[in-house]
C-alpha cells in the first residue's frame, strides 16, 4: 500500500496544482508516517482542500471541431452499496465490481485493454480494491502487482497521473470528478510534464 502513495506522490511533482507539489515522499517515508486508523497511515490518507471541477460535454460530431483532441465516453456504469460499510455483504468487495463490469460491457473493452487509470483514492486501500474489483488484478494479488508494476506517469500502467487525491488534495464534492478531468486531460495530450506515453484508453472511477 505504501507504493500506492509513493508513486502518486511522484506523479504529483509534475502537477503544480497538487497540494503536495514540491514534497516528494518515498515508500519508506510512507511506512514511517504515523497511523491515523491502523493499518492506514497519514501519508495514505487524503488532505482536504478546496477545488472545483467541470468539463464540456458535446456531441461527437461537434467535438471534432474543438481545439483539443476529443475524448469519447465509451462506456459507463454505476452501482452503490450500503451507507454503512458494516452492513455490506462482504467488506472487501466494493460496488466497483458491478459498476466496472457494466462500463466494460458497454464499451466493448476489458481491463487488459486499458493503458492507464484514474481511480478514486481517499485512502490507498481504495485504489487497491478498485484494481481488484474492476478485474485488473486477482483478489488478494494487489501487493505483488504494485511491487512489479511501475504505476507512475512514466510507467507501464500509470495510475492517478496527477497525484490523485492522496497527493493532490481532496476537494470536497469535486473529489470524484477530478479523476475524470485528469483522465480527459491525458487523452487530450494536455498532461504536460506528466503526460503518459499511451493515452488512448483510460478507466476512471470517481
Amino acid at each position: 500500500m505504501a507504493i500506492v502513495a509513493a508513486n502518486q506522490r511522484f506523479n504529483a511533482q509534475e502537477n503544480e496544482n497538487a497540494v503536495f507539489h514540491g514534497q516528494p515522499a518515498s515508500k519508506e517515508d510512507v511506512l514511517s508516517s504515523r497511523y491515523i486508523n491502523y493499518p492506514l497511515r497519514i501519508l495514505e490518507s487524503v488532505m482536504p482542500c478546496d477545488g472545483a471541477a467541470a468539463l464540456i460535454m458535446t456531441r461527437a460530431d461537434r467535438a471534432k471541431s474543438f481545439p483539443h483532441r476529443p475524448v469519447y465516453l465509451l462506456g459507463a456504469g454505476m452501482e452503490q452499496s450500503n451507507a454503512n460499510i458494516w452492513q455490506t455483504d462482504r467488506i472487501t468487495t466494493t460496488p466497483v465490481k458491478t459498476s466496472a463490469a457494466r462500463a466494460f460491457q458497454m464499451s466493448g473493452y476489458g481491463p487488459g485493454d486499458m493503458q492507464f487509470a484514474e481511480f478514486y483514492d481517499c485512502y490507498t486501500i481504495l485504489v487497491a480494491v478498485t484494481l481488484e474489483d474492476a478485474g485488473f488484478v486477482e483478489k488478494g494479488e494487489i501487493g505483488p502487482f504494485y511491487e512489479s508494476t511501475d504505476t507512475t506517469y512514466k510507467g507501464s500502467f500509470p495510475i492517478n497521473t496527477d497525484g490523485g487525491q492522496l497527493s493532490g488534495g481532496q476537494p470536497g464534492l469535486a473529489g470524484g470528478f477530478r479523476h475524470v478531468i485528469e483522465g480527459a486531460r491525458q487523452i487530450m495530450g494536455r498532461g504536460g510534464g506528466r503526460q503518459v506515453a499511451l493515452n488512448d484508453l483510460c478507466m476512471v472511477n470517481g
Partner: protein
Amino acid sequence: MTTEYNKPLPRLVNEAVSRPFWDAAKRHELVMPRCLNCSNMFFYPREQCPNCYSDNTEWVPVSGKGRVYSYTVVYQPANRAFQEEAPYIYAIVQLNEGPRIPTNLLECEIDGVELEMPVEVVFDDVTDDVTLVKFKPA
C-alpha cells in the same frame, strides 16, 4: 460508573424505533430487532425489515456472543473528544445470531485483535442514563 463522562453521547435519530435497544442496554441486556414476517434478525433498528420490508417486527434477546468481523485501531479519532482514549479498537462484531454491530473492544491489547476472534458483550454505564454496548475477548 464514570461520574464525569464528557464525551458525546448517542443522539437517537429515530427514538421511537431505537429506544428499546438503549433501554435494554441500561438493564445490561442485548436485544436485536427481528422480522415477524421473514424471521430475519437485523441491526441497526429501523421501521422496516431490510430483507422483506415488512414493518411487523419485534425485539428479541440475543446471546451477546459473537466474532470480530473486522477492526481498526483508531489513533486519530474523527471527534477529538475521544483523543484521550486513543489508540483504541473500533470493531465490527458479527453476533452468533447473525447481525453485525459496530462497537469498541475493551480489555484487549491493540495488537492482540484477530479476525474471527470470539468476543462477548460488555455493558459500559457511561452515565446514569446511558449505557454503551461494547465487547471484550471471550
